[in-house]
């Protein structure tokens, strides 16, 4: 029995020892996540957010928009479907769009905590860029109740006009903040403007001008554009490198690496438009250099008109435009033209032509050969004028036609081209490019609300508008 009780004690002791489990969880790798931090400073958050904004300007949305604007054509697989306007709610997602917007909002919250105005102002510009993209492509979208999951787990969808008004307010606040006399330095983290708040302020004004142009507030568009980006040196561009999956231009990645040949320019309207400005009556203009900068034949197949990924606009390290001087001047030109101020419109248009004539486009320089953009005079747009090839009846309409052509050409691979495509059907006087549909008779008007929204937010408009339904503004 003595032996037995020893064994008993040993057995019970073993159970007891293993029973002391409470402090088993007091391990660093349990008390916190060893794989991530739980907070970062506002400047580090700013550069991360900038990258998100960059991605939103080079993503699939932008390529679909380019295809639907007739600039690019879809030739294979999914993009061949996009070019036939075959999309559904699952072709679109907001899982980068709005979360990037929420990072921009978080920048503002963090800046407020520090009492900093400058970074807050940049955060507001970034927020406006994101929401502007959302409303341009989807129409009515959530804005008032966004980024506050505790209070608004399922935000309502605001009317597009309200979103535009709110965006102007956001940008006005941004400009006020960016005008503060001092603020936190963020040159090291700002990989677009190196912490230059003057440039950010100008970019905010250009964005305001763009939004006023969309809403037809041409006078306000002009006054904002006056304060907008004042030279090509101040373009808001995404820098790119040569490392795949890290920093290569996403269009290069798409056109050359990940989906070569799935899209191209065969059958697209843009090369036709540009061809019409080579060796034509318009002797002041020769688009050959820009044409060769944009396109190159035979990269993905014999004879195919491909994006120039070899030595042109879409190389791996080509910068990608977000907001540019050319856009600013073309907003000014169109707004002035619509206001009937032809000379100011022409000045702005000629400013762009001067830049092109110097070979500058989106941070790159095109070759001299076939590059001719002589300054226009008002007479060039009169009946029979060299820049009035389509024999439009008035200088205003001929000038508008040239301005929207120039916009169409400059906006390659920017979703603003698709906004123009829809907007110009309504903006008065109506002047449009004869962009043909790829198939059918119905013009694409919008993106479809993502299936993820349909699944989770009961406030998504019902019935779900299809891709041929107009957004309220355009």
């Amino acid at each position: 029995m003595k032996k037995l009780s020893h064994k008993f004690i040993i057995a019970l002791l073993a159970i007891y020892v293993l029973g002391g489990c409470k402090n088993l969880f007091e391990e660093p790798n349990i008390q916190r996540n060893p794989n991530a931090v739980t907070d970062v400073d506002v400047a580090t958050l700013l550069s991360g957010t900038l990258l998100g904004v960059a991605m939103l300007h080079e993503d699939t949305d932008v390529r679909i928009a380019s295809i639907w604007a007739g600039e690019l054509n879809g030739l294979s697989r999914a993009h061949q479907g996009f070019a036939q306007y075959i999309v559904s709610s699952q072709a679109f997602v907001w899982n980068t769009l709005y979360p990037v917007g929420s990072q921009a909002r978080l920048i503002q919250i963090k800046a407020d905590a520090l009492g900093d105005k400058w970074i807050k102002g940049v955060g507001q510009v970034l927020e406006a860029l994101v929401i502007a993209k959302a409303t341009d492509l989807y129409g009515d979208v959530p804005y008032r109740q966004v980024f506050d999951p505790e209070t608004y787990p399922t935000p309502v969808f605001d009317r597009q006009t309200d979103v535009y008004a709110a965006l102007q307010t956001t940008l006005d606040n941004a400009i006020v903040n960016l005008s503060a006399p001092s603020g936190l330095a963020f040159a090291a983290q700002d990989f677009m403007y190196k912490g230059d708040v003057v440039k950010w302020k100008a970019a905010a004004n250009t964005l305001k001008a763009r939004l006023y142009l969309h809403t037809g507030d041409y006078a306000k568009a002009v006054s904002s554009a006056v304060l907008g980006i004042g030279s090509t040196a101040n373009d808001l561009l995404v820098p790119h490198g040569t490392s795949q999956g890290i920093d290569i231009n996403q269009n290069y990645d798409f056109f050359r690496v990940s989906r070569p040949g799935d899209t191209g320019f065969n059958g697209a309207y843009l090369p036709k438009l540009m061809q019409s400005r080579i060796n034509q009556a318009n002797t002041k203009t020769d688009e050959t250099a820009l044409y060769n900068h944009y396109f190159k034949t035979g990269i993905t197949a014999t004879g195919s008109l491909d994006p120039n990924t070899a030595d042109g606009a879409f190389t791996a390290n080509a910068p990608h435009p977000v907001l540019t001087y050319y856009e600013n001047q073309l907003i000014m030109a169109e707004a002035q033209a619509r206001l009937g101020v032809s000379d100011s419109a022409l000045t702005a248009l000629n400013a762009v032509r001067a830049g092109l004539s110097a070979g500058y486009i989106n941070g790159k320089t095109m070759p001299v050969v076939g590059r001719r953009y002589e300054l226009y005079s008002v007479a060039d747009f009169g009946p029979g004028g060299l820049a009035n090839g389509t024999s439009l009846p008035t200088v205003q309409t001929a000038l508008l036609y040239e301005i929207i052509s120039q916009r169409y050409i400059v906006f390659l691979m920017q979703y603003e081209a698709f906004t123009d495509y829809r907007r110009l059907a309504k903006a008065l006087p109506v002047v449009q490019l004869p962009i043909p549909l790829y198939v059918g008779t119905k013009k694409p008007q919008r993106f479809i609300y993502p299936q993820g929204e349909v699944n989770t937010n009961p406030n998504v408009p019902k019935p779900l508008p299809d891709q041929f339904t107009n957004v309220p503004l355009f």
Partner: protein
Amino acid sequence: MAKTLLVNFLLLALGGSRLWAQTRTITGTVTAYEETGGFAGVAVLVKGTTIGTVTDVNGKYSLSVPESGKALVFSAVGMETVEEPIGGRTTVDVRLKSDTRQLTEIVITALGTKTERDRFASSISTLDGKNIARTGETSLLTGLSGKASGVLVTRNGGDPGAGAYIQIRGQNTINGNAQPLFIVDGMPVSNASDNIGTAAGNGIVQQSRINDINPEDIERMEVLKGASAAALWGTRAANGVIVITTKKGRNTDGKVNISFKSAVSFDRVNKMPPLQRSYGQGSGGLYNQGQRNSFGDRIADRTGGSDTFITNPTAPGYQGFVTFPDGTQRYAIAPGTAANPHGGKNSRETFNHTRDVFQTGHFTDNNLSISGGNDRTTFLLSYSNLNQEGIVKAFSNYRRNTARINVASQFTDWLRVSANVGYTNMFSSRIQQGDNVDGIMLSGLRTPPDYDNSYYTGTYTNPAGQVFPNAHVSYRNPLGRDLSTIYSNPTWNINNNRNTTDVDRIIGTLELDITPTPWLSVTGRTGIDNYTDNRLERFARNSARYLTGYLSKNWITEKQFNTDVFATASKTFSNDFGGSLLVGVNYNSRSRATLQNAITNLIVPTAPDILTNALNSNLTAGNYNSLIRTYAYYAQADVQAYNQLFLTLTGRNESASTFGARTNSSFFFPSAALAWQFSKLPVLEGGSLLSFGKLRLTWGQVGIQPQPYQNFTTFGPANYSDFFGFTSGLSAASALYSGGYVRSTTAGNDFLRPERKTEAEVGVDLRFLNNRFSLSATAYTNNTKDVILSLNVPNETGFTIRNSNAAELDNKGLELDAGADLIPTGAFRWNLSANFSLNRSNVVSLAGASAYTLPDSYMQNSSLIPGQPFGIFYSTDFQKDETGRYILDANGFPQGGTGNEIIGNPNPNWRGGLGSTFSYKGLSLYVLFDRVSGNDFFNGTRGSMYAFGVHGDQGNTVVTPAGGLKDVNGNLIPAGTAFQGQIKDFGAGPVAINQAWWQGRGTASNSASYKQFVEDASVSRLREITLSYSLRSPGFRRFTHLSSVDFSLTGRNLVLWTNYTGTDPEVNISGAGLSRGQDWFTNPNTKSVLFSVRIAY
């Protein structure tokens, strides 16, 4: 040992009546077919009496038999009972055969203890290790296929060493690990099957780590299907528990048993999608070299002979040339024109691209086992070597070496010590697959029939005379221009890209059993499972996906430590009541670490796999660590009454480090199981029809732990990828982007608690006509509440996902197992076994969301929708009116849908297996059929091939009938025109299905209708047919000094009956994930013929 003791005990109980009219003495020796020497402990009874004895350690017996005794009955646990007439003999020798059905008379429970099946209430399927090893599968998991009711096994692909998905009674979870828990000799082990690195894009068929275990080492496997059986494993048991028991040594009285088994297998692809061979490369009926499509010219109309090359550097269309290793050269070929659709293409030769890179694979598998023991100590040593060359011609192999030592010693009458240790070294290469331009199926099946993929590399000379060696020549880059690959040539791919995995693993347990008094035992068991997995992925320069090359190395380490200590006390209160109580404690710790490094833009393209072969700016690195700890107290009470009623109650109180900081620190998981042997009722006992009857009722709760670190919202380096994978994305790791961070879009949740699955089952086990026929039926219903869901939230909240205990799931089902000894005795025997099961899953709620798409789903959108089965396809179909008819456009074609609807259900209606064993003396034939019925499968491969014009049903030439036909774009094809396509009527008269349709609404490349590619994937298969012969005659033994030689010939997966048009649907592109039934150029499944010989000394 245990068997011997048991029989001894039984006979002692009968011993009182032994003195009775003895008139003669019979002696003899009992041996067994699979063992050498005498068989100890066999009960020998005079038929119709209680007179008997047991054999001694040499298998000898001596028994006094009365005059009336006519026959002797020899019986032993695990062996078939033999009845031998005495006649005039005084020496009666018999040889016993092991009884496979008897094997299942005991079951191994969740804690690794043995119990009698007939007293057990929960449903457990037991599989004999021999039957798994015999299947010809190199992996344990796929060896289970079709063998147990309620268990579905789907392999991830046909690659050697491919992992598999295993599902028991439907899916119970969404976020956590949906695979069952594996226990080896009492130790929970890892069955990780994860994709990391580039392979996360489903580029490589991943393995399942449980397959590191050598099937030959397995004595038996128990599949604990019900919650009550598994409840002692708490939050790891919700998907069922599979208990593996490895082979142990036996008491051989010091003799050493040596067994050597060698197997060789030949494997081939068992099914491929059909390809057209009538139309050449090009588009619109015109030949075009390098073009992506096969909508070109009609090959039969070409002139024949060799192609006309553009060799003159001054000629239009000259593009230089490629020089192949055999000296031949290829130049550009002029494209077709309306006048001459063939251009310079003259050859009528076509190629079967389903064979480009495939071969007859083979493997050899050698196993050596040495075992033995005496009455105190037993041991088993085994070593195995598996060497497989896969069905792909290069970089496709699986090499596994395993070693095992299992020893046990009964040191004293109260102390037993045992150790079971297994070591595995595994190396495997697999080739890219799936939705990936370097995938062999994608690039191979899209190749035009008139393009020869066997020329895959060479030297390109461009028109300027520049020479580029190491060209990648593919159908879209036929001259091998540098950095212009587009789609890889599968032959180039298998010779240049490689992905390897190298695993070292040790699994071991130490166990101490203390029996201080006969009624009390204490078991202490500690085990480890540690492995490292060293992975390499390499894309050579000029590969399609990484033009400048890519190399990544990933190191994965997992360590698991587990300890159980439990004490069992038993007591018999009276003849009618008895019981036992078990109390124990469990501690478990799992840690995991991964380290990833990758480079692009290789400086020296031909360098070995070194991470220094790139600029620093092209290097990325990452790591991940996790630690999960769990401790639990548990108890089990067993009560039996009247030898009829058996009640088991268990409870486990568990704490885990993954529970949220603001929720309870521990959770309790109870179970109850009642078995009633109603055949022991006096009214039924002794009946001739019903030999045994048992009613089972069980109820239990099990759970699933949250994944680690879900309670925190974190910040991480900003990385942005394209949602659809159309680009490779941007990363803040670039010096250009200043290393920015952003907040994770997954919201943490401090309130996470374990999921809780409650299951009830009712079952009946019946045996008839002296156990010749058996039937077991189980009906179950389970409900999982608090299912942790990566709940999608409206993205405008700033988050995409919030982890929460959000969903509720239900499963109901029925499982039937039946067996019949149609011809039970004599030289010729015939046994049938069958299983049948069905499961109906239902998503009860999703915390307000109307649908949740599983993260590993393809475009058919395997989703959860309240009120619908798990993983139902929720995607697009053509636009329909209220009556469900397609709304046709003006040309008579349906139009692309813009919203989602339910388009298919991947869950089978039922599945079943039918096995038959015929044996004649040493010869036996086993046949196993199984069927999975009523499951939908998304054949994305077909949907994608359509866009390229290569699918088998696209090669027809149609002549337009009178009146002409319109195509989808409204173009009228005049009467009498021949075109590549079909005529179809969607309801508004015949229309032309041609290139315009297949590249528009008729492909899975866009969202017009994914439903058109959902097919019924019901399949019946001859899963296994084995012919075996055993040589063990006394003459043979004397002559060879061997105890036996067994030969067997197995055919695996030889015949498939299915209407599914793609590959064998027993694959899944996303591997062992939750989304089932999806194919997108998945590497195909295989069939095999296997020959093995086992020599036992």
